[in-house]
């Protein structure tokens, strides 16, 4: 029995990731992906998805005609993303690399938009600072950055209720997929510190998500 638990923990389950995220988000994750794609993607727009996982946002952008690149360090997740793209007949470039390898994989000023969903909160602060600097490098002047992450309600009472509502779903998601997400605060500040302009933070219409949008300034 301990052996089963052990395998369960070892086993990464990219093919169950999508299902897990739907449970954790109370079925709002597809709406979030659509929302992100609607804001940045369009025909011919070059989009980089940092930490693309199984390609939820990447493919939502591709459906709108964007030329998408998905970057993730997990080969298994990328295999699922590839299979999903193929099933829909969508073209995308998939890169197996960690966030700390952005400098090796992404040429300066080669994207019109950079998007990242539920990935920033997985990073250490120093990694996030690096990723944001590299994201800025990767963008053309005026290019757009759009980040989405889980966020807890602002009021203490709201936070408590949110924690209680979330606990069973979080446990279920962890059992099914071994995935956890960590809500984070202060993302907009970090984006500003990385040299972005027009930084705006808002609550996503669907679910407990926070959206941070920004631009790379034209003067640089």
């Amino acid at each position: 029995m301990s052996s089963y638990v052990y395998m369960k923990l070892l086993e990464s389950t990219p093919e169950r990731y999508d299902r897990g995220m739907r449970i954790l988000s109370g079925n709002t994750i597809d709406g979030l992906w659509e929302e992100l794609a609607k804001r940045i993607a369009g025909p011919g727009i070059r989009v980089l998805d940092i930490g693309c996982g199984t390609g939820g946002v990447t493919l939502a952008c591709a459906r709108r005609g964007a030329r998408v690149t998905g970057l993730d360090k997990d080969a298994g997740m990328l295999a699922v993303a590839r299979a999903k793209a193929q099933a829909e007949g969508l073209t995308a470039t998939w890169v197996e690399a960690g966030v700390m390898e952005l400098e090796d994989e992404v040429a300066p000023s080669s994207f019109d938009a950079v998007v990242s969903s539920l990935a920033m909160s997985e990073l250490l602060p120093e990694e996030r600072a690096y990723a944001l600097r590299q994201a800025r490098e990767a963008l053309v002047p005026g290019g757009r950055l759009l980040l989405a992450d889980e966020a807890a309600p602002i009021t203490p009472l709201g936070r408590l209720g949110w924690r209680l509502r979330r606990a069973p779903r979080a446990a279920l998601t962890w059992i099914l997929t071994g995935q956890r997400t960590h809500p984070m605060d202060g993302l907009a500040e970090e984006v500003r510190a990385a040299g972005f302009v027009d930084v705006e933070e808002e609550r996503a219409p669907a679910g407990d998500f926070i959206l941070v949008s920004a631009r790379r300034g034209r003067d640089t």
Partner: protein
Amino acid sequence: MTLPGRFLAWLRDTLLRMFPHATRPGLRAIGRPGPNAPVLLSGNFTLTVDRLTRVLRGRDAWLLVADSHGINVWCAAGGGHLTHHDVIAVLRSSGIGERVEHRHLWLPQLAATGVERRIVQERTGWRVGWGPARLEDLPAFLDRGQRVKHSERLMRFPLWERMEMALLWAPATTAIAAVVLWSLLGATTAFIGAGSIAVVIFAIFAALPRLPLWGGSRWFTYAGGAVVASLLAITADMALHGPNLLHIGVLGAASTIAMLVLSLDLAGTTPLYPSTINTRGNRFDLVLNAERCTGVADCVQVCPRDVLAMDGKLRRVRIQRPDACIRCGACVVQCPEDALFFRFADGRTLSPTQIRATRMNMLGRRAVVLPAKTLSTEDQAAAEAPRRD
């Protein structure tokens, strides 16, 4: 630490150690390391980092703690949770490059199932070497001027570690038996039955590696275990309660069921045998495509079981102890010429490409990501072709 805190830490490091427990990744100074101190790397499993810190006391070194999701190095690397991406990440984010003048990183040898050494070198310019397989050998390795002895490449399974593993198996296996026995036959019989099972589990681990745990003969071990546990329990129960057919039958059944639970994957929790649950009973063996081998011998360095050896005359590697192979896949992942692969009993092959993409994680994603069909055709031809390109 407070007493309850200490107790919880003890629980975490013993009975609950199959669960991941993460400590913060990043750079740690051991002693007072200077710009020429060696740089070692490990995963962020709390128990490992604690033990490393203890074993390296009195030495000066930099320790890079990579994010392995709180899982030990060997299991994390084998499950795809500790890869070259995580090594590159901590090399760059920790700022170690500014602290030392050299560019030499020592990885734990057991990370070789997941970390592709050459990719780290190409991307970061650091020279990457394989340190000893076991952390107790690190002080001697450092004192010797950072050279690994052949014996430090091989996995040992000392008695104290076997007892730790028995302590991990025994409660899980006996708890259920105890509850069932208690409800059927009362507290003393439950205690006797569960105790007998626990004694046999400790005895099996004490007797390793002299008992077979792999192949068909492993059933002798488990059958023997069931018989001994039953006899122990029945003898003790008869001494207390007199002969009772119901007691004899139930105690025998409980011992048998406990041994069946053990047989699920006792072998996989030792460093001496291949996992049985991981392959779903489909046996596979290591194959060397000798025409591709150029004798760089990365595989010999990372094998923890002394399976591979360099043939000095032919300047090629040979498989010298096929029966000792535990199918960890480290040699397959590290070979720069793709000269090693696995072949299943039914003739299908597992290529280096597939193993690098999915690690040895067979129960999980390989079955889904790589359906059986792709394991046979082009890939098989590619693995067995004399040269790549």
